Structure formats: C-alpha cells, structure tokens
C-alpha cells in the first residue's frame, strides 16, 4: 500500500509496509499514482502528453522515471505487500503478563475545576481520594514483580493533581530508587501537573527525579482561563505561568512538555502554540479535547477543516522557526524515520491493559487512565494482581489488524490502531475506531513526515 500527498510544496510518497518515504517530482508523482492501474505504455503516453517539453522534460526522462519507480517496487520500497498480519499478536503473546508502565493516580482530587476535564475534575466519577504511601509502594512492587526482564520501568504521577499528594510522590520516588539497583530496574518518572502548587522545592525535586514533566497550559490567557479555573471561578493562568517558566528554566534541557488542550472554542490553536513560544517554551503538545460529543466544548464537524489547516500551518511555522535558528518541538511531529519503532511495536497497539495500567488511589487496576471509573473495566488490584482475565483478553487481542476500519488505512503503522479508550467511547468497542481522531492523526502524520523530510533533504544538501 502507498500513500501520496502534496504539502508545503513537496510531493511525498509513503510505502506503508516497508516504511520507505520518497520525495518525488511531479512526473514521478503521477506515474506512481497510475502505476498499478495502467500498463507501462498507457502511463508513458499519458505522461508524455502532460509533461514532454515542459521545463526541459524529454520523453527519455519520463521513461527513465518510470524505470526508477519500477526499481523501487522491485527493491521492496514501493507497493510492498503487507505480510505483517500473522505477526500481529506475537509481541503481546511473547510479553504476556509483563507490565512495564503504571500511571499512578496519586490524587483523585484537584485544585482546579476545569469543566472539560475527562476525569470529572480529577474525581473520575467517584469520590475524592488520595493514594496512601502503602498503596503506592505496593503498586511499585507489583510493577517490579510483573516486569519480567524489562529494565526500563515507567511510572507517571497523575491525577487529578498529583502535587496535592506530594509527600507520597516523594516517598515513592525514594522507595523506587532504593530498590531499583537490587532489582536491576531503571525507573523513569513523569509528573503531570496543573502547576498550582509548584514551588522551589517541587522544582528542585522534579528536575532531579522526573525524566519528564508535563505542564498543563492551554495557550492564550483567555483560552486557558476559560476552562482552567479554581473553585471560585478564577482563572489560573497568571498564577501558573511564572511557575512553569521557573521550572523549565531550572530544568536545564531535561525533557518537559507544555501540554495544552484545544476545544470547540479554540480550533485556531496555532495562536495558543504561538503564545507558548512567546512565553519561552519550546517543547509543546496540544491535544484535541476528549469529552462527550454533546458537550459544548466538543470539537464539531465544522471545526475539522479549521483544525486540519492549523496542523499544516503549525508545520510551516516549525520549518520557518528552525530556519531562523529558533526551533521548537511539537510532540506529535516528532518522528524519527530512521530510528523509530520496529514492526512488532507498530502493529501491537498501545499496550493498555497489558503492558500499561492505571492504579487508582485504593490500588485498583484499570487498562489505562482513561478507563478509570468505569467499573466494568477494573482488571484487579495491586494486592491480588489481575483477576479480570476476560476483560484483559479484550485488550490482549487489541492490535492494528483487529480493527477492520484500519485495514485499508495508510496510517495504521504510525498509529498502531489508535487509542482504545477513544475507540470505546466513540463506538462502544475497544476495537472500534474514533474516526474524528483518525482524521486529525492522519493530518498530523502527513505534517510530521513532511517536516522530517524537509530536515533530511536539508541535511543531505
């Protein structure tokens, strides 16, 4: 399968199965489009009619171009047949029972009252609760015990707002550091915070211990303060921005992301990205809101073309700023074409419910943070382990080939079938697809590959 598109003046052709990316001229672009449907003679006739004599192109050039396309097909870099289906369940089978990442919900409580929150203001449709050190410690032990030979273990301190349970976070990090050598593990911690409780002590600890920090900021003040308000209704922008700036400055280049959410109220989210840049942040992530389609903040069909255009403009802005020596990173446009994931990873799905789980304050296990609070998805708890094997089997069987809608999609080896929670909420099945999300994802991939291609072309030049 191939996918071809034009963006920012480039003609790009992807060979989906091999992962090959080709930047081509107009003649090659048209030949590739016709290659499997028409004979060589028909294609050459059509191409000669269209291009011969234009910009010095000769019939011999066109014939040569056809030969180049043929060579790529012969060498398995164009029109490669997808033979991966039988491998789809293999990685999960091979690693069955191995858990390598936990999302610790250390606080089902929040000091902000954001109406668009997928976690119902941090409570996940339940009661406010904080995780005790004992539950957290047991969760870390559970992770180590179930991680097999995996060396790198990821733990995300999540909520609600994890800084509302900061002492427990620090004690858990200390405990993990205490056991990791003896257990031959390497803990990588992430802290996801709204910033309200950041102080110098938090900055010092987070910058020392957290491999990554995710800082929630929606961009422009008016956009941010529309949703991200405290319980008196007051916006949080002015309180958190200076704290985020201080944390990032002190972080000294270690990983962080400014993580915004865009909604129906700001489909023109590029302005929010620009605001983040103006504030001095360069590692950025901007996510479409996840909420009930009936919610006034939900993205609509009318928003879609606006959002798609924003993604294109964002890619152009990245290229422009890079050329000016002021580069920035957009999480979804990070793509390493030469060193990205292997095919097993690409077809295995996201790993929720199998290698990744979320832990509630009381120690219950869920397939991921987005399923927390939906009782039927509870897989067990950190004390007794996974007990709901029937539900886990649904996630075990979740891979890119389990989704019928993905079969003919060119982006399937870039998204791995997408988010199980989004699929479930959109279709009632974890093996469904959230089509709106697919449209956004495909555009993001086209942009990401275009930016990467531009970079590689420049390096080669």
């Amino acid at each position, binding site marked *: 399968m191939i996918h071809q598109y034009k963006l920012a003046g480039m003609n790009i052709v992807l060979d989906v*199965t*091999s*992962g*090959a*990316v080709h*930047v081509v001229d107009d003649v*090659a672009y048209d030949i590739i489009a016709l290659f499997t449907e028409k004979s060589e003679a028909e294609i050459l006739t059509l191409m000669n009619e269209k291009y011969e004599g234009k910009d010095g192109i000769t019939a011999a*050039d066109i014939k040569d*171009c056809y030969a*180049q396309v043929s060579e*790529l097909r012969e060498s398995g870099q164009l029109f490669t047949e997808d*033979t*991966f289906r039988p*491998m789809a369940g*293999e*990685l999960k089978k*091979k*690693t069955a029972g191995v858990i*390598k*990442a936990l*999302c610790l919900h250390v606080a089902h409580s929040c000091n902000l009252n954001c109406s668009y929150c*997928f976690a119902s203001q941090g409570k996940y449709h339940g009661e406010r609760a904080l995780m005790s050190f004992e539950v957290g410690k047991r969760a870390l032990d559970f992770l180590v015990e179930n991680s097999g030979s995996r060396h*790198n273990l990821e733990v995300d301190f*999540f909520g609600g707002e994890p800084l509302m349970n900061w002492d427990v976070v620090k004690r858990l990090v200390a405990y993990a550091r205490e056991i990791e050598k003896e257990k031959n593990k390497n803990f990588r911690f*992430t802290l996801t915070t709204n910033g309200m409780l950041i102080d110098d002590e938090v900055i010092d600890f987070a910058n020392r211990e957290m491999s990554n920090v*995710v800082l929630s900021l929606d961009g422009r003040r008016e956009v941010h303060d529309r949703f991200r308000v405290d319980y008196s209704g007051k916006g949080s922008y002015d309180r958190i921005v200076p704290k985020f700036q201080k944390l990032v400055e002190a972080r000294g280049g270690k990983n962080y992301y400014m*993580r915004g959410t865009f909604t129906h109220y700001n489909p023109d989210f590029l302005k929010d990205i620009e605001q983040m840049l103006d504030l001095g942040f360069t590692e950025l*992530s901007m*996510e479409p809101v*996840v909420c009930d389609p009936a919610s006034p903040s939900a993205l609509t069909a009318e928003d879609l073309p606006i959002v798609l255009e924003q993604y294109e403009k964002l890619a152009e802005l990245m290229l422009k700023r890079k050329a000016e020596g002021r580069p920035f990173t957009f*999480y*979804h446009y990070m793509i*390493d*074409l*030469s*060193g*990205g*994931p*292997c095919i*097993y*990873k*690409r077809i295995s799905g*996201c*790993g929720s419910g199998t*290698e*990744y789980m979320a832990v509630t304050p009381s120690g219950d296990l869920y397939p991921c943070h*987005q399923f927390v609070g939906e009782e039927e998805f509870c897989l067990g708890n950190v004390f007794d382990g996974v007990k709901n094997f029937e539900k886990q089997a649904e996630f075990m069987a979740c891979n890119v080939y389990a989704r019928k809608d993905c079969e003919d999609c060119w982006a399937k*080896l*870039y*998204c*791995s079938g997408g*988010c*199980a929670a989004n699929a479930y909420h959109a279709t009632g099945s974890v093996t469904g697809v959230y089509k709106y*999300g697919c449209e*956004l*994802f495909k555009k993001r*991939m086209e942009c*990401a590959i275009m930016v990467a*291609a531009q970079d590689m072309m420049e390096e*080669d030049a």
Partner: protein
Amino acid sequence: MKHIKTLKTRNLCASAKNGGCGECQTSCQSACKTSCGIANQQCEKKESK
C-alpha cells in the same frame, strides 16, 4: 534526471527480524495521554538503528 529522492528510513520488513525486544516506551505514557500514536517513539534497541 533524478526524479525520486528516497529518504533514509528504518525498513519495517527488516525490523521483523531484529525487533520485538519490548523495551520501548509505552505509547501513551508521555505527553499526550489522550490520543495515542506510536510514530513519535524511539526504539530502545541501539543496534537496530
């Protein structure tokens, strides 16, 4: 005339032979948390690159 520039990419078919160690990051664990993809992840197996 060179009509096609093929970029240096990881050959996914070849990665079937040496891939599958499972050390890579879990897909949703870092910044997004709401819209999973795997394209922006890194392979942890150094010799595969």
